[in-house]
């Protein structure tokens, strides 16, 4: 196995273990902190594949934005002792059925997918400029619409929070 493969499997294991730990954790804030392992692991896999910009964007948006927001939300609504999730299992059969069928569907789709093992060897470390060029030309409309959507969400959130404007 090459170094890249060893790194890949190590990171994949980190992501999987983190996800499982979140699943079985009873304390919601601990679960939120365990999310770091998952998010950083995925970012590292992106970086390993040469998608540097995507990797850093993953860190920036998920760790810097969403994770901190999540932790803040939980901390402001619970005290650290009360922040445990209610135990017990309900709807085992329905949940199990849905989970297994979703998993099988995903495996089926993955197996049907013709994966190209060929990697772009040229300019793999200069992908940022190419990506920026595409964003500002072919995908400009989508990019701008997403910007407008985010702005609307921001204004909407401010409107909901402020009672009298």
């Amino acid at each position: 196995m090459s170094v890249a493969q060893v790194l890949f499997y190590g990171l994949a294991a980190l992501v999987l273990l983190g996800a499982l730990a979140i699943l079985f954790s009873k304390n919601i804030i601990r679960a939120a902190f365990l999310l770091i392992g998952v998010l950083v692991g995925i970012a590292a896999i992106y970086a390993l594949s040469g998608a540097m910009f995507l990797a850093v964007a993953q860190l920036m948006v998920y760790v810097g934005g969403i994770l901190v927001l999540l932790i803040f939300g939980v901390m402001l609504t619970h005290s650290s002792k009360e922040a445990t999730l209610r135990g017990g299992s309900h709807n085992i059969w329905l949940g199990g059925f849905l989970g297994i069928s979703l998993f099988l569907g995903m495996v089926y789709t993955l197996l049907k997918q013709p994966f190209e093992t060929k990697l772009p060897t040229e300019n793999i470390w200069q992908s940022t400029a190419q990506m920026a060029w595409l964003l500002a030309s072919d995908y400009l409309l989508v990019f701008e619409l997403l910007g407008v959507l985010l702005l609307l969400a921001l204004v909407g959130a401010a409107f909901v929070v402020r009672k009298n404007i």
Partner: protein
Amino acid sequence: MSTFFFFLPFLLLYTVWAVYAERKVSAFIQDRTGPMETGKYGMLQTVADLLKLLMKEDIVPTASDRWYFKAAPVLIFTAVFAGFAVVPLTLGWAGSGTEVGVFYLMAIISLDVVGILMAGWSANSKYTLLGAFRSVAQMISYEVPLASCIVCVVIICQSLDLQAISYQQGIFSTSPNYLFGIKAWGISTNELGGFLTWNILRAPVLIPVFLIFFICALAESNRAPFDLPEAEAELVGGFHTEYSGFRWAMVMLSEYGMMLLLSFLMSILFLGSWNTPLPNIGSMKLALWTSGTAGSVASFFWGAFWLIGKSLLLIIVMMWVRWTYPRLRVDQLMSLCWKYLTPAAILLFFLSALWRLWMI
């Protein structure tokens, strides 16, 4: 790898001396002598303090979340230290050399925020939790103008790569540089080099950007006048109240590391990175003499000397500011960020874009 072998020992040595310098600077500003007893002029004071810290018991509060409490300082320090991976030190040493260097450094600050939240929450004490809240709220808020300032520089330089940004600001630049960035005058500064080709003079629109960046850097590293998270009178010690011994030392180390990282970033983005401040004047080829030829050992030492020198100078200015200005209130802090710095940074963002379109 080079980060590990150079920046880790450098960071440790720097912190020891920075703590000493901080005490001396504060003492001189307050008309005292500062530490005088340990070693000549008290120079061994920090070493003695450090030894004491290493000997101390590692106390973990009973009601705390044990593993998270222990892991938090490691996470904070790892985040800050990872930032040094992309710092280019000299002409031939680009660190990790990734093309998204600046963007990566912004993400590092976010990781630091998670570590601080973890430290504050896991200690299970009111002081640490409130300290962490304040600290994080402040860091996230000031990240907005900070990021806008970085974007201004990126617009002017057209690159996210810290080494590419460094190359543009000196005699090794391949693109034309004009005096104060005004092409119409036609005074090329490519041959002159020195401080005339630094980003703040290459595009003078970046001078106010630099000021905003400096203010935000103070807030990001939780230093006075923005040290509310550690307001002693209100919160004992902020998010690291419950830490003792080695773990406390690690928190302090990452705090000083953050200062150093932001100073490096400031020197690279605005103050010419590893380029010499001395220009070529006529037959006095000061810039050439103090840069060395590309690839030689001399260029290596000169580059490191200038970059580290500029960063340490900025750190002294940070200390000077700390002991000169009183602490802000929370509402003042937030209004300064959202009502003044952010709009100013956005305005400068547009001005930089116009500058790039019309002047270069």
